[in-house]
């Protein structure tokens, strides 16, 4: 057992870190928040493609790097450190993986190289009007009509829906209120009948409500089998969730670093505030949580890479990482005192993201229910 990064991973991390330092400044993030229609930068996306990152998980035969989820975690953690806005997660992790896992040979051959080349951006149209993240709550209807599907309904929180080329849609084709009866469809963003509405968030990112009104999509849009959408999606979703954890852990580490540096340097009452026992306690508690979240995330990635049943680990990693990033952004901001809440202060970029990250991709309660299913209902108890 050894948790040191491999040389390749260390190199990837270093390259990513340097790239982000150079290209993803606070000014860049603020510009994406305020001035960019897309909310991300197409130039940067092209650079991602040039470095091969967009195909990090794509098999080599489809022009990708064929690297592991653990490698991906190392990369995306650096993006998270710089809270880099990009459709990387849903394009290069989720969509790429689900296509690679359940797509037809034709779909794979056509779509994966496009992703690797940065030619197509995907958005994930899953969440609907529900507090939870369960497949049972999906109602958007896809009705088979000849060789086509006709979609009606609404999706919420579709990130980068306006900048995307393709929507990965989870739609109801069968039994209602069930895990079964869902189907994955790859829907052209420009199909007639699709309209979007921006959903403003604390992080000033680009989440959209996407309304589908009699949207016709061809039969070739089907990804995987009819009515088996959840079985197809869940394993890839777990990978995306772990990658997202790595992203938020990265953001947490970075924010914690700023707060630590401030605590070392800020003098009040004749001494650095970092000398105060309470401040030390806050920072020590948070770094423990961050290490724990990070290790849990990497361990989950490792288990997934080994092909083992990892649902319980994924759920634990997500629940704990979510609470950690929320906690770290809040408490770190407090260490800056009043300054931590001024628009001019760059750490507020992190503060504004903390709670939102915590609630994204299924809130803590959803994942706690998954943990409970795994540890109480599923796993046998082994007392050694």
């Amino acid at each position: 057992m050894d948790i040191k990064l491999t040389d390749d991973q260390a190199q990837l991390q270093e390259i990513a870190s340097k790239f982000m330092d150079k290209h993803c400044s606070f000014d860049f993030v603020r510009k994406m928040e305020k001035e960019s229609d897309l909310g991300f930068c197409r130039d940067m996306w092209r650079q991602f493609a040039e470095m091969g990152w967009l195909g990090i998980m794509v098999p080599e035969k489809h022009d990708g790097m064929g690297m592991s989820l653990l490698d991906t975690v190392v990369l995306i953690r650096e993006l998270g450190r710089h809270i880099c806005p990009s459709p990387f997660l849903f394009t290069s992790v989720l969509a790429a993986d689900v296509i690679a896992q359940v797509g037809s040979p034709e779909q794979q051959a056509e779509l994966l190289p496009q992703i690797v080349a940065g030619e197509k951006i995907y958005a994930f149209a899953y969440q609907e009007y529900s507090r939870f993240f369960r497949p049972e709550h999906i109602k958007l209807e896809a009705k088979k009509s000849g060789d086509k599907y006709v979609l009606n309904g609404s999706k919420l929180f579709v990130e980068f829906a306006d900048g995307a080329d393709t929507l990965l849609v989870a739609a109801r084709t069968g039994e209602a209120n069930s895990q079964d009866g869902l189907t994955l469809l790859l829907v052209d963003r420009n199909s007639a009948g699709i309209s979007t509405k921006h959903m403003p968030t604390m992080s000033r990112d680009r989440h959209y409500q996407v309304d589908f009104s009699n949207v016709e999509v061809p039969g070739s849009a089907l990804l995987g089998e009819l009515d088996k959408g959840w079985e197809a999606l869940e394993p890839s979703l777990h990978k995306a969730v772990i990658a997202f954890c790595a992203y938020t852990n990265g953001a947490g580490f970075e924010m914690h670093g700023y707060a630590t540096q401030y605590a070392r340097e800020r003098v009040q009452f004749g001494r650095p505030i970092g000398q105060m026992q309470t401040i030390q306690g806050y920072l020590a508690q948070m770094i423990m949580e961050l290490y724990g979240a990070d290790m849990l995330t990497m361990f989950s990635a490792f288990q997934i890479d080994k092909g083992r049943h990892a649902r319980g680990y994924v759920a634990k990693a997500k629940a704990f990482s979510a609470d950690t990033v929320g906690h770290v952004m809040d408490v770190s901001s407090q260490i800056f005192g009043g300054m931590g809440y001024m628009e001019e202060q760059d750490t507020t970029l992190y503060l504004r993201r903390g709670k939102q990250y915590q609630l994204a991709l299924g809130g803590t309660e959803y994942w706690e229910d998954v943990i409970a299913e795994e540890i109480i209902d599923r796993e046998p108890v082994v007392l050694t």
Partner: protein
Amino acid sequence: MDFDWSPEEIAFREEVREFIRTEMTDAVKGSIFIDTPARVEFVTKMARRGWLGMGFPEQYGGSPNPFPLAQFILNAELDRSGAPIIGKNVGTIASTIYHVASEEMKMEFLPMIFRNEGQWAITYTEPNAGTDLGSLQCRAIDMGDHFEVTGMKHYITSAHFCRWHWMALRTDPDAPKHKGISIFIVDHDTPGLSLSPMSTIGREGTTHRTNQVFFDKMKIPRSRLVGEVNKGFYYMMEALDYERFAILSFASRVRRYTKIVNWYKNADFNGERPINDPYTRRALARMAARVEVGTMLERMAICKAQYEVPAVEAAMNKAWGATIGDEFAQLALDLMGPFGGLWGGEHSPFGGGLADEHLMAGHARVAAGGVDTSKAIIARRLLGLPNALGKPELPQR
């Protein structure tokens, strides 16, 4: 022991409520952070009823205190309804002027404050002196008939619409640091004074502006020195007790909690009703008990206020209020699933207001003394534990 309000107290509360019903408009409502013409006008109407000068002698424009808790009832009702409360102008500035300033200064400024003529900024903090006000560096050099000031202050929250600054400056750089500060009243139009805006985080239109204030050879007439020279630190510390009491009211938190319960009772997500979920029911119930404790600590503070300055109780109120405010904003957002992170739009249960509350909840934990400082006050003044922060206990003048 009587937890009920007296008939006199109830009558006054009704009077305040009636006033609010009559005078409160949407333009008046809003965050305590934002001052607008409508809010100034509202306060002036209160001033005309004598509510600003309650408890101060009539020769200074004051009016008799109808009974000990009147000022508190007034503020609680204002706070509950989102109206501007009676704050620092009376709590800090008028109280200090009344206790330490010259007769001339009292006659000049107190009636003005009680009529709400001219707004005030509390101009204390500097980049290297936030909580630690004893470390103020900005100098006022004694030039005989006036003092001259070059330097800067920041986080000065009402500076962009104030007429007067209530300003702390260092007058003796060689004395021990707490013994070289003085308080001045500075006209905002004084040549050499300039502003640069800063703002808190928040949605467009809801942020709170604050300011950096710069001084370039600004002159302050000696007549505008408050009380004695080099006693400023002690004046500030004494005023903190009054101010901490003046700014606290738990009423607005209770109101916000009630709003959430109301939302919760009716919430329906495509047929899934949180009200049927035992988990969130208990979470709300636990919060209900903690909110109730807040009203209890507030009760303790106001009852004590009938007899003496409730410094410890006010610190408890501050610490508990800020902690609960934070827990509560977290809970509210958690209850709403991903919709909690929305900053507006049709799916945002309170139009983004709760998200703002969450973002600024940490600010309440660190502002105006902060939770840790309040706990230190409780530990030292109530429990007799030795000084830990390196902050001086309130010393004898």
